[in-house]
């Protein structure tokens, strides 16, 4: 099964960027959304993300990410919008609830930020080989390999986690548990007991991975023993410059 964050092989501009630059770029794009208060800049970042995804041949995946993020955002949007009580009242609802212009603007920004900040991380993971992240952090930034590796593994386990959860839910559904219930609390009550088996099977997985890594000399690895070099190329500087421009726009407006 292919997870939504799994690496997609390719040789596009994004794929060929230095992994460190990819990390930085994702971070800069996230940061831009939080320093700016301008809806259009945030929308622009989302559009930029989609364009980048298109260039890397993962447009379909980006849309899928966007749609699953949208479901979460819709919920947050509804919660947020009733929370803000300042500003002019646009719509009066029963139960003392009302929507203000400030609330609308604030919630919209909040949700857009969420989308724009999550997308670059998802895209970055899709175009970066997992082991490149720890490798480049070790070689270029001098991070101790063992810490860098743990970081890389944590990232890799997100999709494995999701897969495990899906497997457990499937098994429970086969036993007659209905997860498709409309009642939110009932759903939580159904899902909670699954956390224990999920934890057990994940811990077992992680333990297996740790043992296999140790048997392949994980603890012997020094800073110098990397095979790949990760040299910076012209395109890397170009990409960084582009990122800097987005950030500058975000700060100015």
């Amino acid at each position, binding site marked *: *099964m*292919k*997870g939504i964050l*799994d*690496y*997609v*092989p390719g040789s596009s501009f994004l794929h060929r960027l230095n992994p460190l630059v990819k990390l930085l770029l994702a971070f800069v794009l996230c940061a831009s959304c939080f320093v700016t208060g301008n809806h259009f800049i945030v929308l622009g970042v989302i559009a930029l993300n989609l364009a980048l995804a298109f260039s890397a041949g993962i447009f379909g995946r980006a849309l899928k990410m966007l749609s699953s993020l949208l479901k979460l955002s819709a919920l947050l949007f509804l919660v947020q919008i009733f929370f803000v009580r300042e500003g002019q009242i646009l719509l009066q609802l029963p139960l003392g609830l009302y929507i203000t212009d400030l609330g609308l603007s604030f919630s919209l920004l909040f949700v857009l930020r969420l989308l724009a900040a999550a997308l670059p991380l998802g895209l970055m993971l899709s175009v970066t*080989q*997992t*082991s*490149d992240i720890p490798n480049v952090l070790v070689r270029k930034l001098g991070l101790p390999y063992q810490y860098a*590796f743990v970081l890389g*593994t944590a990232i*890799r386990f997100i*999709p*494995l986690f999701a897969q495990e959860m899906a497997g457990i839910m499937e098994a429970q559904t086969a036993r007659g548990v209905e997860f498709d219930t409309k009642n939110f609390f009932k759903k939580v009550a159904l899902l909670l007991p699954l956390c224990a088996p999920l934890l057990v099977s994940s811990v*077992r*997985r*992680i333990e*297996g*991975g740790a*043992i*296999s*890594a*140790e*048997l*392949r*000399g*994980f*603890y*012997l*690895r*020094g800073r110098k*023993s*990397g*095979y*790949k070099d990760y040299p910076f190329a012209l395109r890397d500087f170009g990409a960084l410059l582009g990122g800097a421009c987005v950030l500058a726009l975000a700060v100015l407006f």
Partner: protein
Amino acid sequence: MIELKNLGFRYSGAERHALDGISLTIEDGAFLGLIGSSGAGKSTLCYALSGIVPHHYRGDFYGELLVEGMDSAEHRPEEIARVLGCVFQDIDGQMVASVVEDEILFGLENFGVPREEIEGRVAEALAAAGISELRCRAISDLSGGQKQKVAIAAITALRPKIIVLDEPTGELDPRSSRRVFETLKELNEQYGVTIVVVEQKIMLLCEFAKRLAVMEEGKLILEGEVREVLQSAGRMEAAGVNIPRVTTLARALREEGLYGGRLPLNLEEGEKMMREVGLSC
């Protein structure tokens, strides 16, 4: 060479021993199949061979295990790993990389293999496992059989003298299972690698393994050449191990006094037996 001398292990908290007084010698160049019902202690034996038992799992450990002369109680698992590579049951959990090439590089980089040697080793390991064309593929895109071969290549790249595999065909269909065993055979015959493989499919072991070891409740109950071990088919069945149908048939014919030749292990030999008996099929 691997020597087990009265080896025993009980996981802390467990009531009975997972390994119970096992004595066994595995010669260089051997192809040993290890069989036994579930819970017999096969995986624990693999852990012991790689040094994970007693270094990782706590428990009572007794007896002695020598891998190429190294006492497993004294040497760390990563030292043993230089001569003995392991592929464990949960194949997905063992992968550390997202791309095949990186998975192979992982061990080579860790063990500090010189740069100029690395490329050759990667190419050779991929070729030996028959997966050269998968080099740049994402691991999550591969089938179970292909992943199994990646795991094998990641180990062979380190050039161990011995490879231990725990149920490598557990989740594979018959054809991919055969391919994995063909890869093992090639490693054994072309490269002289000693193979120890836990396997439930007795027909595969009959075809590929040279020796067979049968475990029951932590004990080693039978060990020897495949045909020799199958003479004790009754004992194997009592231990919950399937035996090939032709072998069962031959035993039935023997009991009737109709057949006195050697035990057939596969269909071809079974056909020969039937001709000898005088029934054509």
